[in-house]
């Protein structure tokens, strides 16, 4: 269970442009500092936003990671939807508190 370290890496990447630069050029060395599973490493390597969401990464961290990797807002939202479709409900973290999809509104206005 290393969701904490995935989120910590994203938190650090969001705050530290130099780390982000190293992440882009020598990712192996950067992720080595974090206790991550094979699945998490794969999701980070592939910038698989959908899988990261399903693994339980908080959107307030994930959104910035997506943006810094060139995702538009719409592409970011779509990636999470695709992730749910492909990998099933969110497995851990905040969104697993409800239905594992991030929402169960009783009434929606959109």
């Amino acid at each position, binding site marked *: 269970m290393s969701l904490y370290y995935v989120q910590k890496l994203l938190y650090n990447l969001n705050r530290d442009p130099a780390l982000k630069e190293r992440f882009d050029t020598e990712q192996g060395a950067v992720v080595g500092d974090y206790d991550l599973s094979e699945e998490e490493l794969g999701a980070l390597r592939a910038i698989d936003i959908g899988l990261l969401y399903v693994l339980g990464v908080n959107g307030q961290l994930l959104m910035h990671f997506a943006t810094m990797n060139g995702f538009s807002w719409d592409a970011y*939202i779509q990636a999470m939807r695709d992730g749910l479709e492909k990998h099933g409900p969110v497995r851990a973290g905040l969104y697993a508190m409800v239905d594992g999809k991030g929402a169960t*509104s009783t009434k*929606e206005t959109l």
Partner: protein
Amino acid sequence: MTLVYAGTCCHAPGMTSRAEMAAPETRKQLHDAFARQRQALIDTGTEALVMVSSEHFANFFMDNMPTYSIGMADAYEGPIEDPDWLKIKRTKIPANPDLSLRLINEVMHTVDVCYAQEWKFDHGMSVPLHFLTPAYDLPIVPVNINCQNPPLSPLHRTWELGKALRRAIDLAPEKIALIGTGGTSHWPCTPDSGRINEDWDQVLLDQLIHKRKDALLAYTDEKTISEAGPGAFEMRTSLCVAAATEDQTGEIWFSEAIPIYATTCSITTLYMVE
């Protein structure tokens, strides 16, 4: 002198980053309400603003997450987000570390708080300040309540934080305003971003202005997240200000669901010096 003004306002980043995408009439009414709140700060002679917000992993993280934190820096800076995206220029924001120290010391008699001498504001502070103190000429004392990642503070403790802040503010010689920001329904940064539960929001605002303590403390996080989304955990910020102002009934100055801003934008006044 004491508390001179208290209220709540929204901090949706869409209000600045996607400002022009809302209907012009709605946008005007929202801006008018912010202008009215700004004017209230001026009319009451506010000398310092205590702003209760919930940041979004800008400064605090799960390695040592403070449940409550109060700023005591010599100055703040914000926004931490890309200024071109948020459409708010990054700037220095004045502080009052001496007032911070006095508030923290008094609050600590009944509620444990962390203090922070370094604090970069994210949209949770920067968006309201952009509307309320556009010249950045009012010293700010930031207060943060962790509303992002459970375990979160029980609501009755957040109520006590509000009580403690009021007691501390009333002991200070300065004229102080207290504003809480955030807490209507939203599902930020999730596949359901843009969803709003208007009914839930209206009920919450009504409880807040009438300071219905029992009703407010009866909210549970399980129900809140399922009905109003994870963003609604931020109701703690408004609840805290309601607790601080139990002696007056408040007023809703603006409330409208604005899907392009991803939440119900609302502005309330919860206390005004007579």
